[in-house]
């Protein structure tokens, strides 16, 4: 691999997105004083794995001269990620409201 190459850039960008996302989610959970329950952990880990797979497929497909495959990977893997994120968000919101009512 070349010392200076776009490949580095894309994977570093994915790393920043992942790291930044993790910090933001951690801070929000801390702020609202919520802890993840087991199925939320599973959803979180699963969506992270699919996000990684989607990012890798997206970037690698361009290097494979397959731009159509790159964009379709965003759709086919992005939709499950969004669905998992919605379920996770709704679950957290439900517990947050419940906790607020108790307090």
């Amino acid at each position, binding site marked *: 691999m*070349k010392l*200076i*190459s*776009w*490949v580095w*850039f894309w994977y570093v960008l994915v790393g920043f997105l992942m790291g930044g996302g993790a910090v933001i989610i951690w801070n929000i959970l801390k702020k609202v004083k919520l802890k993840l329950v087991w199925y939320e952990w599973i959803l979180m880990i699963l969506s992270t794995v699919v996000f990684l*797979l989607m990012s*890798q*497929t997206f970037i*690698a*497909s*361009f*290097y*494979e*001269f*397959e*731009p*159509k*495959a790159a964009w*379709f*990977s965003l759709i*086919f893997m992005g939709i499950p990620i969004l669905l998992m994120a919605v379920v996770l968000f709704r679950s957290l919101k439900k517990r947050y409201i419940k906790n607020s009512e108790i307090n």
Partner: protein
Amino acid sequence: MGKSNKKYHSTVGRRDFMKKLGVGAGAFGLGAAGFTGFAGTGFGADGFNDLDEMMSSPLAERKLPFWVKEVDEPTVKIDWDNMEIFHGPENTLFNPASWENPKDYFDIYNKNIASTKKNVQDNVPGLSLKDRALADANCWGWGGRSGADLAPPWSGADVKANPKWEHPTMFYTPEDYGVEKHQGTPEENSKMLRSAGRIMGASDMGFVKLDEKTKKLLWGKITFEDVEKGYAEPENNKFVLPNKELWAVCSVIPQSLWMQQYSERMSWASSNTMSYSRANIYGNRLSVFLRGLGYQAYGGDTESIGRSVGFGVMAGLGEYGRAGILVSPKYGTDIRTVLITITDLPLAVTKPIDAGITKFCETCKKCGEMCPSGAISMEEKPFWGGGAAYQAKGIKGWYMDAKKCYTYMLGGEPDCSRCQTVCPFTKFDEAVIHDLIKLSIGTTPMLNSAIRKMDDVFGYGEQPDLSKTPWDLDPMDIPLYGLDKSRS
């Protein structure tokens, strides 16, 4: 035939990649000059009409990293007025006449021979018999006879005289070094051969023991006699192997998938066909390597031994596919040939494999649909066939009508390799998802139909933009020999 114009690949360069993402290099504040891996790929430029046009374009300029400067004078000082002109290679120290005292040359050469022999005898790592055999293979394995003229006439130099059976080349044997031939367990020998094969030019390697069954994969003209060493009488079309334990070394010779992003004509003319010359050079090297270890080697070119797909299947290098060609779990159908070399070096056999490929072919049929000549069978299940001179009976598979294929390819239409290009197993090795798909095919056949559909939806196997050729690229962006590093 109407499907022959269907797209089967698409191209995009790194610059296109960025454009499609809507991101300019300047937006990152990183400076295009620094991104040598990206700058000046030439993708997106109009194609050139001829070589002159290409050379006069900015693409003909070298793309150097910013820390490498072009200067008017080289960094070594040269006195052009007093520069002595060398007559030629005879000026070099490889010519004894270049030495003030030619005896010094021979003294040094004899010392070299003595130390080489001693190192082999002492089994010094890096200088042992197998290391020397590999060195000879890579040095002389190109098979040319002129090597004999250039080489010093030292003991061991040998020029073989039967190019269709034993390659004409130079090599040194264990006897020359005064040692026994290479000794190793079959497992050690197989591993050693696979390592040497990778260095010499084989993507992968498998081993088949010749028995009453597998001997049927050899050409019928090959016979066996109770002789210590095989021989050939090409003028009588007689090729004899010794009646002893023999193994077929089956070597996968890759071709360039990278070139197949361009027009099939270009890919064939400049890439696929080149694989044959690489195959023959590799075969020479392997033969020299085996004989350098003290063992026999026969065949080892693209024509002289037997059926490459049959041996490839038996060696577990792939499965028999719908197009009648080998489909490898790693390389798909993008294999130019499986080169067969027969040897008496004891080897651990590699068994046939089941990666779900033949099963997948039942459902997929993509090669058959995309074949412009209609040569590939569209029967769902494999069948007992054969009958034509070019179709051997005895295999329950899909029999390709090679005559249709050949007529299309050589009868005025562009050369073709669509069945290889469109195969869902023929993929670059960058995206991890391909391995997951192969995992599914190997373990969950019920998803095969969906996988085939997704292969189409994702655009795999679409036809390339035929106006684009490698001439448009920065030369340094072209992989060496056109071979894709990600799939080697």
